[in-house]
């Protein structure tokens, strides 16, 4: 789907006109292409004044050097643009201490390049922590969300929050910081991702096993080129739209893909499967035995299943007063009941044991609600509850369950929204535009990656920081 307004305000005469008129000028967002450098300009690493923040900033800076980034620890006026600022606040214990790092960040924001990144690394408060600790850490939450709304020209602000004994050196922390720094997160803004300790598989984890990414495991440089190499992924609803994009992205990142969609979408499904060298499985996921049929499909062909992306979903929008039973049942049946049933089969299967990943599609409607979508929001809210409760079930085998909540994404579905409503919906976020299917797919590929083992039970919004669903 194309957004002609974004194109118009970014090129030629119409761009000049829009500038003169002071119209909102959403930026053309840069998306990831394989092989591109992580950042093309200097990356500034700032730290709060305490020793913990300093030490963590040093550790991150040295990891960044390993990623071939142009790392700087200070910046000044007249030095030109910085492409990203990483602010480490892991040692803060009182809101007073936020003063200097916040204002130091503020002093360089005008030098942040178009498409730049601000990533705040902080720590989640523990139950035993003092009120002041809770205050500053919760305060960072509000700080980041507000900052993200002030950034312009396609720049985004996000935060990584370490929980319990997670450290900045954990693969999950590095992977999350890298995701936010990269163009993979072009449409993710104002989000806080919590990093915990990855679940450790029962028995002694083999340190040489690239998927059992526990604490202290070093990620090889080559890991980032194909994080999903050797993994087998099932994507439901993969015939078109966001599902097809997810399949392409997982495949690009090295996964072997199994594409699932209803038999009626089989021809489109076959095209995507052949494009990716994957296999097509025509299956209605609401079938009682859908989980078993997915497992049967991969059992002989691949011998294991590592990633399941529950993307298939439907909408039947109606005001509750006018809702027909079949409209309610279909939406709940496809969007949540089917996922619960499939997950039960997955959890019981010996094929789904190697640090598996479940990523489910939620929606900002499931968080903030949406008029005319009581059924849809109930199902998508259900998805959020499901992944939260599934996460601990998967932890013993090093697995994770997460959800991605897309905001306004340019698809065939949103193209059918009436013009005026669509235009408003597109602009109501920090990036002033709709996202692309690839933006959702990138977030899913990150959550599905072996290094994201410390991210579980969470909902990552891909919405450009939409005003609703905050």
């Amino acid at each position, binding site marked *: 789907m194309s957004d002609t307004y974004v194109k118009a305000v970014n090129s030629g005469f119409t761009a000049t006109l829009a500038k003169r008129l002071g119209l909102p000028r959403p930026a053309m967002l840069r998306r990831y292409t394989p092989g591109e450098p992580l950042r093309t300009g200097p990356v500034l690493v700032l730290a709060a004044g305490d020793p913990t923040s300093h030490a963590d900033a040093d550790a991150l800076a040295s990891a960044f050097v390993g990623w071939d980034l142009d790392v700087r620890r200070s910046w000044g006026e007249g030095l030109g643009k910085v492409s990203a600022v990483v602010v480490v606040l892991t040692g803060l214990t009182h809101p007073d201490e936020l003063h200097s790092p916040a204002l130091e960040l503020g002093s360089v924001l005008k030098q942040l390049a178009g498409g730049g990144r601000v990533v705040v690394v902080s720590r989640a408060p523990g139950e035993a922590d003092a009120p002041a600790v809770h205050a500053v850490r919760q305060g960072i939450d509000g700080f980041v969300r507000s900052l993200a709304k002030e950034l312009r020209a396609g720049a985004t602000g996000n935060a990584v929050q370490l929980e319990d004994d997670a450290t900045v050196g954990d693969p999950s922390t590095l992977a999350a910081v890298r995701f936010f720094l990269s163009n993979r997160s072009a449409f993710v803004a104002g989000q806080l991702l919590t990093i915990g300790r990855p679940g450790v598989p029962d028995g002694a984890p083999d340190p040489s096993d690239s998927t059992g990414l526990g604490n202290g495991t070093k990620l090889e440089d080559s890991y980032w080129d194909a994080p999903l190499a050797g993994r087998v992924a099932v994507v439901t609803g993969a015939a078109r739209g966001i599902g097809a994009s997810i399949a392409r992205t997982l495949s690009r990142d090295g996964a072997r893909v199994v594409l699932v969609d209803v038999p009626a979408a089989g021809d489109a499904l076959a095209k995507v499967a*052949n494009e990716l060298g994957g296999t097509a499985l025509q299956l209605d996921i609401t079938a009682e035995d859908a989980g078993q049929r997915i497992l049967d499909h991969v059992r*002989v062909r691949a011998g294991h299943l590592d990633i399941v992306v529950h993307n298939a979903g439907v909408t039947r929008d109606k005001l509750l007063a006018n809702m027909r039973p079949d409209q309610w049942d279909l939406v709940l049946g496809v969007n949540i009941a089917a996922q619960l049933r499939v997950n039960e089969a997955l959890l019981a299967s010996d094929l789904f044991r190697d640090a598996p990943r479940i990523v489910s599609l939620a929606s900002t409607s499931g968080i903030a609600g949406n008029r005319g979508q009581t059924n849809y929001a109930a199902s998508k809210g259900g998805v959020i509850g499901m992944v939260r409760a599934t996460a601990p079930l998967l932890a013993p085998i090093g697995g994770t369950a997460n959800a991605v909540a897309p905001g306004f994404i340019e698809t065939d579905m949103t193209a059918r929204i009436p013009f005026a409503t669509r235009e408003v919906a597109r602009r109501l976020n920090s990036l002033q535009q709709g996202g692309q299917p690839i933006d959702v797919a990138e977030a899913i590929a990150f959550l599905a990656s072996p290094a994201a083992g410390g991210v579980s039970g969470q909902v990552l919004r891909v919405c450009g920081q939409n005003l609703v669903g905050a």
Partner: protein
Amino acid sequence: MRKDPFVTTDPTNETPAKKTAAKKSPARKPPAKKAPARTPAAASSPSTTTSTTSTTGHASGRPARRAVILGGNRIPFGRAGKAYASASNQDMLTAAIDGLVARYGLAGAQLGEVAAGAVLKHSRDFNLTRESVLGSALDPRTPAYDVQQACATGLETFVTLANKIQLGQTESAIAGGVDSTSDAPIAVSEPLRKTLIKLSYAKSAGQKAAILAKLRPKHLAPAPPRVDEPRTGLSMGEHQAITTLQWQIPREAQDELALASHERLAAAYDDGFFDDLMTPYRGLVRDENLRADTTLEKLGSLKPVFGKRLDGEATMTAGNSTPLSDGASTVLLASEAWAAEHGITPLAAFIDAQSAAVDFVHGRDGLLMAPVFAVPQLLARNGLTFDDLDFIEIHEAFASTVLCALAAWEDDEFCRDRLGLDGALGTVDRAKLNVHGSSLAAGHPFAATGGRILATTAKLLAQRKAETGKTARALISVCAAGGLGVAAILESA
């Protein structure tokens, strides 16, 4: 008692020409009792009394390697001039191949061979299968060739490829078939064609003018493709009407078979049986000819269309005859080693096949009766009877084609005199016959029917074995224009 215009019980009525024809009949000397019976794998057949030593190796008459069916894919069959009106044979065959490739993750794979064919074929499609492969997701270095044996094209293509696999000449193959009666080739009239050829050799303008002057307006009328038999001028339906009358197949029996075909195919769709055998195409998700809601009353209300000029009741209607159709089908087959290497579980194994032909021009046998002769030979050679079979698939060119075959096999006299058996071959249990419907409901794009039946049967066999844990067997029989017929036996893998 059948009404045989040639009255075999009265030899004086038989002309010398017909005697010769009958002698040439392949069933004249059935190898039933003489040929060593092959032992079906697992040797569980109660009727098998011969060697049960080895199921592999040539000593037992079995090939050293088995050719196994791994799966199939077809597009839903369309009615002529409807959903696929603008699709060419190449479009449909390519779509059917691509769907199969997607199901088994074979994009970019180099297969041993792809063979397919079409009955109604444009002359420009001289390399139809190869062109379809080049347009598909397969490695362009996959060899391909065309096969054509009228309605038996699909089954014969499969048999040929299976034999190659058994012989070790190839490891993997796709057997396919396609036909479009909508996008059929239309030729010019013979006088116009000959004039145009002469014209291409003419040198001067004068010569050209002289040649063109001989053309008459009637020569410009196009010559559409005909499904009439070239040697008799009769349509297939008219031929079958003669056989139907000969075997006195009642209208009700034909309508009942047609109804069962529709009901069973619809039920199979509802059960999701075709979810992994079919890929939708151009908006069709089910066979366009399928009438899930048809009834005996509706079928009974149709007027006869064939046999109206014969001396007897005309019983064949549009409801109990297959319509002209468009569609394509494919079957993936391979050696067991290739299947294992690619992580694909075989559904069924190819056991044996037999072709036959009848002299329908001068002889007594109906145009579509050749399988009646092929089947007993095939069963005898494999030491099997109808009772040993779990599924019997007989292509429904017309309801009466199936019923004539069943009647012939139940007829002591016919089986003794014409098939050289001791008595009737046996009765086909209707519960085993075309269990998920056949061509009357699905439609019959000539060359695509074999692939449709093979994939359905292979899946049925795999399901039956999974249920019972025992080897399951099936017989497939396809009649074809020109008095041809091909039969094959499959066994669960």
